[in-house]
């Protein structure tokens, strides 16, 4: 197929020829199906039409695909050649040579985010363990307490049994802890450098306070009374330990180019100054 020779494409093209065969086939098949709810006569009528359509279709395709010659549009009807638009494109000034590029240019590598998340998570666990050991005499108490915060809805009631080690609770808490730590590390790595001011302030203090507040509200709404069983000071301290550590690790990671001097939106890749117009 597609082998018809033309003198020149400028004169026209051959395209698949119009045909009523698909319509016949469709009507035939529909009639055959509708015979179920109408009359058995429709099977024969529909079958005949469908066969007619199928044969017609076959003849459209074999031995050669049926084609129709379509003359080319007159020159005046054709879309004119596209001409370059007058006016110009505003360029970015950040980046190489004032050009448009994917922004931001250089950042903390994602691995730094993961590392930061792990470091923060470990630091948090360490502090929590020491605190539990000093105050309650058992490092597991706080771990279970953490499980209670993260999984307050699986029926872990506060009580004396929290002092011991429970494989199930510890494991599920650990999984959630690790996942959350890694994810928050990633967010830190991508977002922290865009924020104005000091990244350690945002990552170490503001963010932990925000999510602690959100957590407090949610727990109180879902399970009134559950909030009482949580030592919120310890909780906040732990979150801040996480935030500081993760933020620190990430901030220290190697950045080829820092964009600290640009405003947030520019660093996010949205907007730029329009000082240098031309290349």
């Amino acid at each position: 197929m597609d082998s018809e020779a033309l003198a020149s494409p400028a004169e026209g093209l051959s395209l698949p020829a119009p045909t009523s065969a698909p319509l016949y086939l469709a009507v035939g098949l529909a009639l055959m199906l509708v015979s179920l709810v109408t009359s058995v006569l429709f099977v024969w009528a529909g079958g005949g039409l469908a066969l007619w359509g199928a044969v017609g279709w076959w003849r459209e395709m074999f031995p050669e695909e049926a084609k129709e010659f379509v003359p080319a549009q007159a020159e005046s009807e054709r879309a004119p050649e596209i001409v370059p638009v007058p006016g110009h494109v505003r360029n970015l000034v950040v980046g190489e040579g004032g050009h448009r590029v994917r922004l931001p240019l250089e950042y903390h590598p994602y691995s730094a985010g993961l590392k930061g998340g792990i470091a923060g998570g470990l630091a948090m666990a360490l502090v929590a363990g020491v605190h539990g050991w000093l105050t309650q005499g058992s490092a597991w108490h706080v771990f279970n307490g953490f499980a209670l915060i993260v999984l307050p809805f699986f029926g872990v009631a506060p009580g004396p049994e929290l002092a011991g080690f429970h494989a199930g609770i510890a494991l599920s808490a650990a999984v959630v802890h690790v996942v959350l730590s890694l994810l928050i590390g990633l967010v830190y790595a991508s977002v922290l450098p865009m924020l104005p001011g000091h990244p350690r302030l945002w990552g170490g203090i503001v963010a932990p306070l925000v999510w602690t507040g959100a957590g407090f509200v949610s727990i109180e709404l879902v399970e009134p009374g559950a909030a009482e069983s949580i030592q919120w000071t310890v909780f906040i301290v732990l979150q801040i330990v996480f935030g500081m550590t993760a933020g620190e690790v990430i901030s220290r990671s190697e950045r080829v180019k820092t964009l600290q001097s640009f405003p947030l939106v520019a660093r996010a890749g949205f907007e730029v100054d329009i000082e240098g117009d031309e290349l």
Partner: protein
Amino acid sequence: MSSSRHRERRFGKRARPQARARASRAFLGLLAGQGVAQADAGGGTPSLFLPVAEPAQSILDYGTLLVLICAVIFVVVMGLLALTVVRFRASAVDDGEEPPQIYGSDQLELAWTVVPVLIVIVLGLITAGRIVALQKDTPPAGSLAVRVVGHQWWWELEYPDHGFVTANELHLPLGQVAFLELESEDVIHSFWLPQLSGKLDVIPNRTNTMWIEPQKTGMFVGQCAEYCGTQHANMLLRVFVHAPEDFERWVRDQQQEARRVAAHAEGRALFATTACVNCHTVRGLSEIGSFGPDLTHLMSRTTLAAGAAVNDEARLVDWLTDPDHIKPGARMPAMKLSDAQIARLAGYLSSLE
């Protein structure tokens, strides 16, 4: 999981602080107020914001949290959108310039991927916990057993421990967990009492279970929530929550056989000799009919035809003369009796208190 059972028990016992009911009401105060005002008129608004039982209260609390989270997302994203559109609207004069073309930012994409992931993790955990806490597969100790059978288009309600059957009006004692077994005689229905519990489908060949722990006396409405045919709209349901001693009295009344009033002997005979008995049971007269509602204490119910009409003698006459007039498409046939016969029959039926 012993601890989870512990939690479930705590759940039922907790007296709900008034403060939270108030908070919920404040959430949509206008709607709620309207509901309260009309509740005594025999209907009222079955608003989710006026829970009178567990688990409806717990679901509302959970829902409020979800709504809050979604509201925050809504405000942030909608605000961004509005600000963007306002700020970057093209000026009326076209300067012919194209703005800077920015292809994307992996950091931003990562941020707005991971933050929703975190939200989903938290929401998922909360939701999982709620599901586990609110679904009970076995009846709690000391619960009241009720068997609910959905029919096209009415509810059969059986109290197996007390040995009687009624229809369309569920009576429950205050503070006691009722454990409902839901079954269907024909198609799928859905049992829904918005102020008391979520809905649960009533499915042929299956038994679903649901629990309700009423915390307030009164009458509350609900209805079938799964389209079940012509009269789906009039498959209404009423719940009466009584103080325990009132409930006991109601149970004792229901356990009685049907009253025999000498004045209605003719109507009674008519009932027993016509097709009525093929479908309806009147304990003490005929107990073979099971297709239609049990009529033993018909007049103890406030409505007729699953809430389609008020239950009084005049409407009974209407109903017997032409059921389609009250509830078009109802399974009850017009009996083609004379007016006198219908009057006698209605008289007898209205004596079944």
